[in-house]
């Protein structure tokens, strides 16, 4: 007895497109900026594909691409070249895209993706890459959405934007893992400063190839035909489209029993509104791109010294940094991931705070909870945050030294956040002192200052005092709470000690 359509293996490979953050386009001097409001202003004869215009490679685009290739552990080619990929589409003014066919600038490589997103026992999967190559982006067709047959329009501002294509092996095994791969890719590219990976603006896009290996009624493992889902432009979209496609392929398999009339690769689109993939074109239009070396561009020699220089100049990569936070700063894997996944600026902020306050664990708690909550509430980036690393480190240092309770520290934190940024400029230390003294938050550690308060509280709560004296340890909690409310800067440990001493006397 075999289970029909028993779940077996999901096989996914992603082609990720990343727009590079160059000043100018890849083959001309036009500005490389997202600018949908003013169509066709960032254009010239070259990116308009006018007769006679010629491309010249932007070396900066290659530099960013090599940095990305190195960060992905790929092998950078000593010689690379440009090829024409030919197809007709209105957003492609030359009717060919300058791309790289058989000699991409980067071969192989890999990226590790954590298998689960919590716990310290996380395992990582290594997703191998086939290649990384560089190409020019196309323009954008603006279709009339009213369906009233009006003309479509074309915006070529985007035409010629440098675009990195990162092609993975079919090593991904689930929709969720594919999403994590894409998230990790985005993080890496942003860390490297090679792209802003702004998915709304299309600077990170992805095509997914997916099929399943399923077992038929006779126990024979059969692979479903590969489906390429084009133009996924959100993390949720990638995951949802792949989940949908897994279900669809399984269903189709159940219906046909693994006997396909057509086993050719199929291209499907993703309709995010309806949450379905849909057939885009059949194999009868299967494109022959007629690749050939672009005679307008010369082969590119990449000097080994240059590669080494770029390799040396790479920043610490997110995966390594995450590991260091765990190994050296003794953070939990979860905290380390939360910090690293927020991007380089937040990680830098955290490390500065950790180093200056001397307590990475406390710094991690504050950054992952208080700071992130405030950033989310305010819709701010860490760079715009009112409390800089020195400020937070100063607050945390005072907790460590016993000058502030955690609760009072939160009040100082909130007060600093509410400070008028245009207000009088004083050092953060001075400002913290000010807040502490204004609000009476200084820790009252000496029992002399506490004594009158303790006496008054005991007097007001005779029952609780009697219960404690009678052996009910828990009764002291109520008394501590009251003292603490009265003495803002009091340290709960000192209060407890003083109360016990008083009640025991």
């Amino acid at each position, binding site marked *: 007895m075999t289970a029909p359509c028993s779940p077996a293996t999901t096989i996914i490979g992603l082609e990720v497109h990343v727009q590079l953050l160059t000043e100018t386009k890849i083959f001309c001097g036009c500005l490389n900026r997202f600018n949908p409001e003013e169509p066709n202003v960032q254009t010239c*004869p070259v990116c*308009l*594909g*006018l*007769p*006679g*215009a*010629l*491309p*010249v*490679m932007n070396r900066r685009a290659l530099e960013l691409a090599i940095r990305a290739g190195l960060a992905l552990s790929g092998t950078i080619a000593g010689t690379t070249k440009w090829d*024409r990929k*030919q197809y*007709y589409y*209105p957003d492609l*003014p*030359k*009717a*060919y895209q300058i791309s790289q066919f058989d000699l991409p600038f980067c071969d192989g490589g890999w990226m590790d993706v954590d298998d689960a997103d919590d716990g310290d026992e996380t395992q990582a999967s290594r997703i191998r890459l086939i290649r990384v190559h560089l190409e020019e982006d196309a323009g954008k067709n603006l279709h009339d959405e009213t369906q009233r047959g009006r003309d479509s329009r*074309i915006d070529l501002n985007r035409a010629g934007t440098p675009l990195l294509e990162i092609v993975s092996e079919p090593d991904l095994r689930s929709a969720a893992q594919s999403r994590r791969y894409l998230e990790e890719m985005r993080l890496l590219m942003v860390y490297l400063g090679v792209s802003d990976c702004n998915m709304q603006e299309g600077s990170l896009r992805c095509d997914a190839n997916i099929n399943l290996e399923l077992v038929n009624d006779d126990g024979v493992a059969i692979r479903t035909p590969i489906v390429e889902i084009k133009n996924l432009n959100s993390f949720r979209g990638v995951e949802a489209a792949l989940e949908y496609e897994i279900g669809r392929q399984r269903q189709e398999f159940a219906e046909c029993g693994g006997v396909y009339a057509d086993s050719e690769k199929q291209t499907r689109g993703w309709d995010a509104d309806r949450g379905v993939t849909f057939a885009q074109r059949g194999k009868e239009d299967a494109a*022959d791109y*007629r690749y*050939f070396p672009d*005679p*307008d*561009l*010369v082969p590119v020699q990449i000097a080994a010294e240059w590669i080494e220089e770029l390799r040396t100049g790479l920043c610490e990569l997110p995966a390594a940094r995450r590991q260091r936070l765990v190994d050296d700063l003794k953070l939990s894997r979860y905290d380390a991931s939360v910090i690293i996944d927020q991007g380089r600026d937040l990680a830098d902020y955290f490390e500065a705070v950790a180093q200056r306050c001397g307590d990475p664990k406390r710094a991690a708690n504050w950054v992952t909870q208080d700071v992130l909550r405030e950033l989310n509430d305010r819709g701010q980036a860490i760079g715009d945050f009112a409390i800089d690393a020195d400020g937070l480190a100063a607050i945390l240092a005072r907790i460590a030294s016993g000058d502030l309770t955690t609760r009072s520290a939160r009040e100082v934190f909130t007060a600093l956040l509410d400070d008028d940024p245009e207000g009088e400029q004083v050092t953060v230390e001075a400002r913290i002192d000010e807040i502490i003294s204004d609000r009476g938050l200084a820790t009252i550690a000496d029992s002399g200052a506490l004594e009158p308060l303790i006496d008054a509280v005991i007097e007001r709560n005779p029952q609780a005092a009697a219960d404690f004296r009678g052996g009910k340890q828990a009764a002291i909690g109520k008394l501590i709470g009251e003292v603490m409310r009265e003495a803002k800067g009091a340290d709960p440990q000192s209060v407890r000690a003083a109360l016990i001493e008083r009640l025991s006397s």
Partner: protein
Amino acid sequence: MATALESSATLLDQLTDGQTTSLRLTQDCLDRIAAHDTAIGAFLHVDSEPALAAAAAIDRRREAGEPLGLLAGLPVAVKDVLATRGQPTTCASRMLQGWVPPYDAHVVERLRRADAVLIGKTNMDEFAMGSTTENSAFGPTRTPWRLDCAAGGSSGGSAAAVAAGMAPLAVGSDTGGSIRQPASFCGVVGLKPTYGRVSRYGLVAFASSLDQVGPFSGDVRGAALLLEVLADHDPRDATCADEPVPAYRDQLERPLDALRVGICRDHFTEGLDKDVDEAVEAAIDVYRRLGAEIHDIQLPHARFAVACYYLVAPSEASSNLARYDGVHYGARSDDYDGLVDMYCRSRGEAFGAEVKRRIMLGTYALSAGYYDAFYLKAQKVRRLIQQDYQQAFTSVDVIASPVAPTPAIPLGSLVSDPLQMYLADTYTISANLAGLPGLSLPAGFSDDGRPIGLQLLAPPFQESRLLQAAAMHERETQWHLRRPPLAEDSS
């Protein structure tokens, strides 16, 4: 009176010492165009008013004692394959009829800066594909020597314009002989520079790895002068060489000592017209008399050149011409149903037969399953041809040969036989495949009065040597002083 029939050097002298003005010279060219171009068909666009205005402005600057550029008011005709800001650039195709580029080709910028007077755009085979200018969508160009014969091509208009005195200098482009062959048919000097010597920026591409811009002139000195203006390192063309540009004219009078002239005997076999054979042999005798050594050389792969060329060039052309899709500029069919139909009809209606033929050849050669056997193999053969020349130039300084198997051919004689038309490129295309500089210079006439050219080839970036060798022949023969009867009539 100074006319554009004079040499450019003479005209520059006359302009300098005030015997003539740029305005008068320009007007003389315009008059000749008005008188003869209906018959010849050299121009697709005559830019009369702007040319006269530019000439007058240059004259004023000369009077004011301002320094002028190298061309200092000489009219120059430009092949309609080069982008000219504000002037139509059609490539003699309905596809680009009415298209006015928003930018100047690099060489057009250079011409303007050198104070050339851009007099108009010259006729050509559509997108430079052809050898007679009969593939122009706007009518053929006839050689001023014989109005029933073709001016050659594809730069037939530029060659004819110089021969007829409609401009003392003209610019053409050469992908497989398109400067040298019409120069031969029209009895003028034409030079195809080394690939990379002149920027291709703004040269509407036919076959990018073969195309090169070059000068036409009535004499060698004029070609040297115009090449000095055109040649330049242009960072906008990645294939443009960063090589210093010699002052070509300074070397001209100096004969080359112990010149070694290479002859490939395979060039003088069946299919070569008797008059051409005799003229070329006579030219070689001239060099022999001047003390040159004549050496036989071997070019073992030359016999594959036509086949190789007609794979490489159409392949690149099929890609370069894909952009003419009716979407962004150029012709769009009036009547279509949907996007694909718009592509098909626009291209089907606006391209001529030869362009379509080459697009189909090239598309086929680049198709999956055929690429290795055609395009890739052609590239290998191309390297072998290059090596043949490298080898040959170890023992000779220049290689002499016919330019074309015949003098100017009667209009219509080959239009229905494209293969014969392609085979007639046999002497010129190797220079493009190997990237070498080549020059065609007047070397006599057929019995019935059609001009015959001699081709000289030199190693890469040896344009100076080529011009010096040509000047040696020119001084001895003076063929270049003959003018077509038609042109003399109106002076």
